């Protein structure tokens, strides 16, 4: 469902594989199996969308080496980088 917050691909994919395995196993009443089928198809579609729409995010720890953390902040500030950084002047054998 669209409102599920921040679902991870791994969770979706795992639930899908479980649904498929249960359907393959058989023996469920039709109503239950249909619910499982619908759930499975939705999970498959959602997973596919995630794969299709994903764009790599690249960030950089801004202040890894300083006293960096605000009280209570969950992680340090990260500076957004272009997803595929341009190649700089190559270091010597870098």
């Amino acid at each position, binding site marked *: 469902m669209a409102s599920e917050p921040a679902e991870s691909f791994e969770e979706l994919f795992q639930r899908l594989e479980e649904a498929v395995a249960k359907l393959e196993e058989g023996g469920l009443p039709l*109503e239950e199996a249909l619910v499982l089928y619908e759930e499975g198809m939705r999970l498959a579609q959602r997973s596919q969308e995630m*794969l299709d729409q994903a764009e790599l995010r690249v960030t*950089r720890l801004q202040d890894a080496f300083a006293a960096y953390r605000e009280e209570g902040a969950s992680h340090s500030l990260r500076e957004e980088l272009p997803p595929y*950084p341009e190649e700089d002047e190559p270091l010597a054998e*870098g």
Partner: protein
Amino acid sequence: MREVYSVSQLATYLRELLETDLHLADLWLEGEVSNLSRSTAGHTFFTLKDEFAQMHCVMFRRQYGEGTVLENGVQVVAHGRITLFEKRGELQLNVDFLQPAGVGIWQAQFERLKAQLEEEGLFEPSRKRPLPAFPQTIGVVTSPTGAVFHDICQIVGRRWPLAEIVLAPTLVQGDQAASGIVEALAALNREPDIDVIILARGGGSMEELWPFNEEMVARAIYASRLPVISAVGHETDYTISDYVADRRAPTPSAAAELVVPDRAEIGRRLVGHQVMMTGWLAGQVARRHGEVGRLALDLRRAVPDIARQRERVAGLLRGAARAVAQAASGRRERVNACAIQLRSLDPRGTLARGYAIVQRRADGRVVASVGRVKARDRLDVQVSDGSFPAEVSKQYGF
């Protein structure tokens, strides 16, 4: 007034002075072996000398590098710490590693640290942690400039763009590199959302790759709460980092390949699951379809008033046809023919070919049996591109 020391006081003072000196506590010394003797307890005593000076050496346990022959006259490189042998007022080198000279100091230092860390258990296979199957956030410790980081982003972006890459930038060669790497590893370990770390550097000379052979780097990898992939230099380069890390990748690009799954392969598995599920559904529809047909036949046989029941059967069949396939006619032969034909066809197209799932609006239950509906029941009929409402004929019933 100047204080007067006892000899013991002086010896203690000197020993403490020597043992707190960082250079003397971690010293590499090259020289020629002489005065070699071995005690019954297994200790080895010898002198290392050159043209102008000599130093007493003692080795309490045997720890030789590969190919070391310890005999008078051979040239060796020893590692150890300088102490004062108080009883004799002599300086001596407590040797903990010995290797033939000429092998190269880099190699000697590498072998010594490798032997030491191996003995301490830092390379234990049992402590290697599995890598996450679908990492969401990948920490990368490497130089912010140069091709390595670029390549890693390229490959991860192509294979698994669902991931986020977090760069912890550091120098990767030179004197500052080892401490920079240690701090970068620690910084990533402080982040709450990182799943795995790649420690990477491009190819270079043994000297350039040296930071990855430093003890402090090895210990930082060992201390990491997150699994670490070591990817240093080319395929043929082995560093201490590679041995301590949870996984060695032959190159940084290889690390990027193995840290994430492949989008294309996972996509194929998704399609496979969808095909399986659609096939399952088609099979179900075909089975129910056959049941409805049999039921209609039974009903027809059971009821003596053929003329009247024929009409009822026709009505039932209309219901059955709506239940499984809009296209089915009111005749049971047609229904059965469809069932046989359907089973023989690719199941995926079933809904698209016009079959349907019928559900009772009131409770959403699937209508799998004529007994499940009565006159005027409101139904939802699901076909390939959506659903529409329907109602059971008001004449329907027994």
